[in-house]
């Protein structure tokens, strides 16, 4: 069965510091991978999606970037964090036609 590993679970970072969140997938090959952000009281906002190695599409302009150096690895990064980057970040993969299977998320607080 498919498994998504996300780490860390919780992160507190100062404004202006860099960020690297990693997501790795097991139990499947060539998945579509996604990064979502969930703000308090709001739905999930799609940030990036990837259909393959080094193939990244950005959904919204922002202070973040994503990379997929390996088939089962998806990384979310920032060079300088802003306060507005705080939120709950979720990695997901698509399964079947449209289902999404989520990792357990990283709660980022920028202080």
């Amino acid at each position, binding site marked *: 069965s498919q498994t998504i590993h996300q780490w860390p679970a919780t992160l507190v970072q100062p404004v202006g510091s860099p960020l690297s969140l990693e997501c790795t997938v097991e139990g499947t090959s060539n998945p579509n991978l996604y990064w979502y952000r969930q703000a308090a009281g709001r*739905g*999930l906002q*799609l940030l990036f999606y990837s259909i393959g190695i080094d193939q990244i599409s950005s959904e919204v302009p922002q202070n973040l970037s994503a990379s997929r150096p390996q088939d089962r690895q998806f990384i979310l990064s920032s060079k300088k964090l802003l306060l507005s980057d705080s939120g709950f970040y979720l990695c997901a993969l698509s399964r079947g036609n*449209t289902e999404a299977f989520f990792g357990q998320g990283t709660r980022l607080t920028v202080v």
Partner: protein
Amino acid sequence: QKEVEQDPGPLSVPEGAIVSLNCTYSNSAFQYFMWYRQYSRKGPELLMYTYSSGNKEDGRFTAQVDKSSKYISLFIRDSQPSDSATYLCAMSSRMDTGRRALTFGSGTRLQVQP
């Protein structure tokens, strides 16, 4: 106007009650409809998945889609305290299948009181 509207709640019900959760949407191209359950500080987990209009039942859960009204519902029978969570609706269209990303509602927080 948001593509998907969902009442944030919280919705508080007594144990054993029938719960009705709803979403409305504006994009008539949506064909795939899903409900996710999200416990606090956890990732969402898929509960129900339906294609096009109609009903689908799975144990205590029933998903209903009315495409003519652009309205979907999730019913929970004999609700339990363990059902307390945030419920997110999600949907996508055939045109999205290239990236297969979903459009989510903001979620409804449900509290089932013992």
